[in-house]
Structures are given as structure tokens and as C-alpha cells.
């Protein structure tokens, strides 16, 4: 009996000695794992645009306003709400991880009602966005004299040609543009001839230059590098030509036997036949093979005749077919079989936004890079559709440093907050003239559109100016060093 009692007493004492620190550690966020160092509580960082919003965690008001770091959070999921007068409350579930910071430093608070500014007294027929450029084009008709360039930086509108100019009567047939470039090429004609014009908007006025002599023949596709805009690469019947505008030289048969091409980072990517993807510099030197695989080539490209090559970076390369097929060189290769309407990269975060008529989705390559860093094998990129009830999605823009997406869907513009996986709630921003384009310029955070019915140029600020922008976690750390 005595021994039994001693054994029981010792067992319970030992249980207490072991359990007590474990229990208290667990309560205070330190979870002990066998064979691992003790994990402690995590941190949640919240930063909003505009700042100064109240923070509620599990319904309890946090003492500070945004930007703020909630330290010592026990691992687990918390209901977090951020609210500011005049703005819709933002709420989500945030998971705190041991010894990690869960950073939400790009919370864009949507106002209860967006402040719309009318920029023009007269109506326009069409708005043409120049992606990733501060310029966009407006026109009141199809003639060159009806075309205007709008500089969103200075809010200035300049006509393409002076009234009475002999170019004013040229009717615009085609407009070629490259994302990130303020230049564009117009194909226009009058009753007598067809011409190509280079339109440069960087000079403080719209410089329209006749470059027809560089184009003796029509081309199927044209590209230029925004960094070296004087090199124009035209594609026709499997051949690529390089035109040097500065040297006024015309390079024939630059490369032949091609099925597609693309430019990125001063390197030209060419798809030879359907088997080989090559990379070479603009002087056709430093050639390297990215892949040379008939099976993969056949699987990716099939019988389509031309593919735009769109590198996300030097490793991840997308191809867009003429029928709107979207494929990539890395598995899973085939993303859209037909009907792709647009593809935009957010290169800093290794993500691609694409949309078809009724669906918008993001391909996220971050898991791949995380896997490389942590030596995890066989990790594939995430693909998630954040919007699948579209009516007629025409445009998409990355907004607020890749945390949001602006989509133009038929007669509405929506703002989507991108969450990890899953559908996002479509936050309606504004109604627009049906089927018309919009222009969103990330640097100013402003959206330009033609108002429904009046067709006047309107503007609203989706992302508030720099002074109101959310403090990043890094800035917060360097400024306050609270973690």
C-alpha cells in the first residue's frame, strides 16, 4: 500500500512537473514540439490605405490604429476587422503562425461611395488603355484628328494632330501598343494611301511621325522593347525582322522558321517550329535553348500557327496562341484552351493574372520559389479563380502592388482583393459605358473611364496617394522596430 501510494504520488508529481510548463506555454503561445526548439507566438501586422483605421480582433478593440503590429499572438486563427469612418469595414480570418509574422500591409479600404471626378465636358467615343503607362488614348471618332492623348500624371489632354493638319483626316485602322511603353504605332489611311505612324507621347506633346517607309509590307505582329523602343520586331509568315528606327535601317530575315516570339529584359525569345524555345540577344548572339522537346512542343502548341511568347521571368514562360490558348513551359502547362482575353504579370510576386470572358484567375508561382528555397519537391504553382461570374470581362489590372485586381466587366468595374486561394468578393467600383475600356495607372492609383450615357471622361482614385498609402511591414520595422 505504501509503495502503491508512493508510486501514485510520484507519478502525479512527475505529471505535474511535465504538464504544468507545457500547459502554461501553450496558453501563452509557446508550443513545444518534440525534437524541435520551442515555438513561440506569432505576430500580425496590419497596415491600411488610408491609415488610422481601428482594429478589432475577435471583436475586441485593439489599442492602436493602423499601421500596427499585434505581437505575441498565439498560433491560431483570428477574426480581424478593420474599420474607418467613411469606408467599408474590412474583415478576414488571419492565421497567426508560431514565430512568424502574418503581414497584411496592403489593406485597401474601399470608401462607402467613391469620389468621382469629371475630367471632360465633352463626350468621347472610345478610351484606349496603354497598359502600365501613364498615358491613355481617347477618341471622338475614327480619324486621327479625333484622337487625344491623356497624360494621367499631369491630367493633360493633347490632340494627336493639330486641327487643320493634313494628317487629321487619316482614318485609324489599327493601333499597336506594348505594355509599359508610351509609344504606339498607328496604321491609318486616307483615300489615297495607307501609312504607319509612330506616336510618341513622352515629349510633352504628341509626336506623330510617319514611319511608313520601314514597313514596305504588312506585318502580322509587331513588338518593341519599352527600354529600347527604337528596335521594332515585326513578324510575318514565320520570319522575324528587326527595324532600327534610330538608324533608319531595316533588317530583313532577322530570324526565320519561327512559330512565335516575345521580348523580355533585352532578350528575344523565339519559338522555332514547335519543338524549340530559344533565347538570344537583340544581336542574335548568346543563344541558349530553353527547351527542345517535340513531345512537350506538340502538347503545348498543337496546330496553332502563331504564339506570343510572354516570359514572366527567365524561367517561367507563357505562350498565347491566336485562338486564345494559354500555355506555359512549366507544369501544369495548359492553362486556357481557348478564349484567353488577357494576361498580365506581377513580376515582383511571380504571379500572372489572366481572364477569359466570364472568369478571372491568378497563377501564383510563389509556392515554386518557396519549394526551391526549402528543398520541397514537386510543388506546383497555385491557380485560383477569384471571379467566375463575369459577364464580359474585357480588361484586368494589377492594383496596389499586386494585392488587388481591377477588372472591367461589361459595364462595371470591380475591385478584388486577392486572398490566398478561393473566390474574392467583387467590390463594385463604378458603372462604365457598356463595353468601353478603362485605364488604371498603378503609380497614381487612378481609374479613368467613360461615364455611362454621357461618355464623358471620369476619374476616381482607387488607391489613395503616397501620403495615405499603407506603411509596409519593412518600413514599419525600420521606423518603429517593435517586433
Amino acid at each position, binding site marked *: *500500500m505504501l509503495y502503491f*501510494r508512493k508510486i*501514485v*504520488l510520484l507519478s*502525479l508529481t512527475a*505529471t*505535474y512537473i511535465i*504538464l*504544468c510548463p507545457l*500547459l*502554461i506555454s*501553450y*496558453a*501563452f*503561445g509557446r508550443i513545444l514540439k518534440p525534437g524541435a526548439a520551442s515555438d513561440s*507566438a*506569432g*505576430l*500580425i501586422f496590419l497596415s491600411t490605405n488610408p491609415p488610422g483605421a481601428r482594429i478589432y*480582433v*475577435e471583436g*475586441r*478593440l*485593439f*489599442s*492602436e490604429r493602423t499601421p500596427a503590429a*499585434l*505581437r*505575441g*499572438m*498565439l498560433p*491560431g486563427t*483570428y477574426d480581424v476587422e478593420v474599420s474607418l469612418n467613411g469606408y467599408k469595414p474590412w474583415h478576414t480570418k488571419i492565421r*497567426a503562425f508560431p514565430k512568424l509574422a502574418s503581414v497584411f500591409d496592403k489593406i485597401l479600404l474601399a470608401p462607402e461611395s467613391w469620389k468621382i471626378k469629371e475630367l471632360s465636358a465633352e463626350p468621347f467615343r472610345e478610351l484606349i488603355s496603354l497598359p502600365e503607362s501613364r498615358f491613355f488614348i481617347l477618341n471622338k471618332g475614327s480619324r486621327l484628328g479625333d484622337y487625344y492623348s491623356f497624360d494621367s500624371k499631369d491630367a493633360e489632354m493633347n490632340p494627336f494632330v493639330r486641327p487643320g493638319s493634313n494628317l487629321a483626316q487619316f482614318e485609324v485602322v489599327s493601333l499597336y501598343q506594348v505594355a509599359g511603353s508610351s509609344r504606339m504605332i498607328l496604321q491609318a489611311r486616307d483615300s489615297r494611301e495607307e501609312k504607319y505612324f509612330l506616336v510618341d507621347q513622352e515629349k510633352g506633346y504628341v509626336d506623330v511621325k510617319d514611319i511608313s517607309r520601314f514597313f514596305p509590307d504588312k506585318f502580322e505582329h509587331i513588338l518593341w522593347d519599352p527600354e529600347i523602343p527604337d528596335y521594332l520586331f515585326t513578324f510575318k509568315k514565320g520570319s522575324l525582322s528587326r527595324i532600327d528606327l534610330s538608324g533608319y535601317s531595316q533588317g530583313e530575315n532577322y530570324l526565320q522558321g519561327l512559330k512565335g516570339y516575345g521580348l523580355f529584359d533585352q532578350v528575344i525569345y523565339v519559338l522555332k517550329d514547335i519543338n524549340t524555345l530559344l533565347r538570344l540577344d537583340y544581336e542574335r548572339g548568346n543563344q541558349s535553348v530553353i527547351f527542345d522537346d517535340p513531345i512537350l512542343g506538340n502538347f503545348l502548341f498543337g496546330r496553332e500557327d502563331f504564339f506570343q511568347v510572354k516570359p514572366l521571368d527567365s524561367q517561367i514562360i507563357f505562350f498565347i496562341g491566336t485562338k486564345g490558348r494559354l500555355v506555359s513551359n512549366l507544369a501544369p502547362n495548359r492553362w486556357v484552351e481557348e478564349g484567353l482575353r488577357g494576361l498580365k504579370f506581377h513580376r515582383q510576386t511571380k504571379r500572372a493574372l489572366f481572364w477569359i470572358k466570364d472568369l478571372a484567375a491568378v497563377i501564383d508561382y510563389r509556392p515554386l520559389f518557396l519549394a526551391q528555397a526549402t528543398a520541397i519537391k514537386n510543388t506546383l504553382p497555385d491557380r485560383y479563380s477569384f471571379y467566375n461570374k463575369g459577364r464580359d470581362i474585357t480588361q484586368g489590372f494589377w492594383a496596389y502592388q499586386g494585392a488587388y485586381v481591377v477588372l472591367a466587366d461589361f459595364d462595371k468595374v470591380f475591385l478584388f482583393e486577392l486572398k490566398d486561394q478561393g473566390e474574392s468578393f467583387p467590390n463594385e467600383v463604378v458603372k462604365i459605358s457598356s463595353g468601353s475600356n478603362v485605364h488604371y495607372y498603378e503609380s497614381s492609383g487612378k481609374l479613368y473611364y467613360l461615364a455611362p450615357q454621357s461618355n464623358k471622361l471620369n476619374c476616381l482614385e482607387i488607391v489613395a496617394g503616397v501620403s495615405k498609402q499603407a506603411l509596409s511591414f519593412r518600413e514599419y520595422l525600420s521606423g518603429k522596430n517593435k517586433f
Partner: protein
Amino acid sequence: MEFNFSNQNLSRPQATLQRFFEILPGILSWGIILGVIVLGLTRPLAVAGLILAFDLYLVLRFTYMIIFLLFLRSRLELEAKTDWLARARGINRLYDYWRELNELEVGPKGKQDLSRTIHKNELRILEKSRSRAPLLEDIHHLIIIPGKAADIANFSSTVDSLLRSDFPSIKISVIFAFEYGVSQPLRLTVSRLIERYRDKLFEVQAVYCPDKPSSKYPNRSAVINFAARESVKYFNQKRIPLEKVITSYFQAGVLVSPDYLSCLTYRFMVSPYRQAACFQSIPVYNYSIWSDPVSRITLNASASFFQLIEAANPDNLVSFSSYSLSLAALAEFDYWPQDSASIDTAMFWKAFIYFNGNFKVIPLYIGYPVKTVVEAQASWFKELYRQKQEQAMAVQDFPIAMRAFLKAGRMPLAKRILQAFKLLEAQLSVSLWPFLLLVAGWFPALLCGREFSDSGTYYSTPRITFLIFSLMVIGLIMSLVLTKRVLPERKSERKILVKIVDWLTLVPLALIGIFLQSLAVLSVQTGLIFGRRHSHDG
């Protein structure tokens, strides 16, 4: 060790020590309570940690209690059909008895075999100790029944139960011990009572305490001490060795089961430490108390709960009401303490100190019914509190025992420290754990103000609260299990609904018992801080 087990007539240093130890438990209890409140307001998270540590301790403590309570229950069931008198006879003829016991060891193993194995083990310990057990024929039982005039009706029921005992009544002596100033008509009634039992018992007498009740001393200890001294004189006159007189002190109205005295006799004979031991029976309800009103169930369960828990842990066991010991030992350590409010536990500590820590309480694995008188339904709560306060009186033994431990040079230091710690821990845990468990546990959740809201743990308090709540619920469930184990099974109604109702009934029982115990102990501790010594004369 010679020690004045009293708080009166002390030298200046001893009086200072006495005051210090009187104040200590109260100061600690209130210090912890107020400390928890203040810390709860200023550092609720630290309190949360403390509460968690305490709750876990409590859960494990309950686990410990339940293990031994179950053991105790099993042991009582195991010994239910034991013929104690036969075993006691066997001790006097050990050689033949061993042979008989060994011959019996055939057939399927059952409860009786297990009981016999334990019995044989006890015999081996006796043999190994080389202590010579007294002859059964030489053993006398002295029953002291103190009482007031109002208790006279209960005397005969106790004596009648003694007469129903399987122990020869001719070896039983009964002393009715009355306080000072019993009226002449009552004395006449007592005489008639004595006459009624004179031929049936070895001796039956009534003694009347000559001392007037003092405000300093509780009257009961004076009465029973006088009775014990008179008994010593009597047995000395009769040339009966005091070592062979087992003295039992029962309250009037206690009903003794028929085999109680036999069991006591056996335990006395088989124990090598019989002259430095107290034999404590266990109050277990073996009749259906479910027919009683809830108030009475509460009272009865509450009465035996504490004692059962103590009995389940012999190492912590001290004497409480209805126990027995050798008259020689009683006389040797000079009877019950004169000025203790709780003479039962005080007697233990007095003996423990006198025998240099070698005084033991030996549990008797036999239950007897405790009679608790509740006259009016309305007074049950008051009665329950009175009962708890009576138990809380043991608090006053602490300073005396502590002084004794400081002086007890012949008692091993480790034993003194251990006992002192146990005493203090018992003092504090009884007074504090209901408060900590049911009130302070919520402080972190309730008092975490906005000023802490820049800490993530503020938002994690739901987890802390959940942990505290879970541990509290476990603790309460364990309290219920303990309380339930104290009560007998309902035999007539076995429906699930009835069982659920039974369990639900136990919730207030557990909570009331817990809180009243705490209040009573805190009240006594607080009184001691201000120099107010409590007394009762049961």
C-alpha cells in the same frame, strides 16, 4: 517530547511565536486572495498563468484523491463479510491459526481470498515486529460518551448499539460524561439509565465535571478529560492494565455497527504500534439516505466527504470524531488538549508531538452510520456552515503544532518540515482553492483591460479562458465523482433519468460544500489574525 499543547500561559517568546503562527495562515490566505485580485487588475496574464498552474494542481490532486477513495471503497467492500472476532482470536494462537489460514487457501480466488491475503500480510508484519499482541480476553473497551442534558435520549441508542455488538459486552465499559451543573432530576434520569445497563456491561458510570465552563477552555475537552482521568483511576483500582483498555470517544447518538468493536479489537491487536496509535473508523453511509431531503443529503455528504478524503490518504490522516486509542497512551500524553477548539485533531497533534512524530492514525476499514440531526429544513444551511466551521477549528492547532515542531529536537527535521508543510498547505488549500477555482480563474478574461490590448496574448485570452474553464470543469466533475462516491447507491430506482437527477443534485452539493468550507476556514483564519480564538463545545 514534553510540550505544553496550549495557547495559554506561554512565556513571552512562545507567546510571540504563537501569535506569529496564528497570524501566518490568515495573512497568507488574504495575501494570496488580495494579491490575485491586484495582480488580476494589473497583470492579468501573470494571474492567468498562476491560475492554470493551480487548476492543474487541483485536477491532479483530485485524481490522487479519487484513486485512494476508490481504493478505500474497495477495501470496505472487501472487508464487509470479515469475521473480525475470529481473526482477533487467531492472533492469540498464531501457530495453529497460520495452518488454518493456509488450509483455507483453495478454490477460486475471490474477495475473501484477497481479504485473507491482506490479513496474512498484517500477521507477518506483527510477527516481524516481535511485538507481543495482548490476549483477546484481556482487552477491555472503554466508551466515553460526552453529552449535555439535551443529549440524554441519544445515550441509550448508542449503548444499545454497543450491546448489539458481537464483542462480549461484559468487556465493555461505558462512561457518560456530563458537564458541570447537571440538574438533580437529570442526574436521576441518568441513574436510571445506568441501572438499566449495569448488568449488561462490565461497568457503566456517569461522571459530572466539577469544573465550571470557562470562557478560555471549551467545555467538552474538560468533560472528557475528567471522564478519562476517572476511568484511569477505576481501571487502576481494578488492576486492569491501561495498555489493554481501548478507549473510544463517541458522540451521543452514534450508532455502532455490530462488528465495529471486533474490528477495532483486531486492528489493536495486530498493530505493532498499538500504544502509539489512534484507530479511526470511517463514516460511510450504509443506509439509504436518498429518502432524506436534499438538505440532509448535502449535510451528510458534506460531513463525510472531508473525512473520507482524509481517510483515503493515511499519510495525511489525523484523528477526527469517533476514534479509539489505548487508555495508557491517552494518559501518557496527558489526555486531550484543554484549550483547543477542535479537540479531535488537536489530540492527534498533541500525541504526534509527544511521541516525537511516531504517533499514527490507523484506519479501520469498517463503516458506521453517522447520525446528523437536522431539526428543521430551514436550518440546514446554517447547520452545514456550523459543521464546516467545526471542521475549520482545526486551523487553531496550526500555531501550536508549529511551535511544537520548532522545539521537537528528537523528531527528525525532515519529518517536522514535511508535517509543517502539510499543515500549512492544508490550511491554505482549503481556504483558497474554491476562491481560486471559481472566482479568480476568470480574472484574466474579465480584467484584461484595453491597456493590455497591444499584447497579442490579450487576444489569446479566449484560449487561456478555455483552458481554465476546461480544468475547472474537470475539477468540478471530479468533485462530483468524489461526492457521489461518498453516497450510497440508489437501490430501488435505477432509471437513467433518476441517475441524471442524482448527479444534478450533486452539483449544488459540491459547490456548497466547497464554498462553505472555504468561508469557514477563512473566517477562523481571519479571527486568529485579530487574536480571536474560537471555541465550541460540541
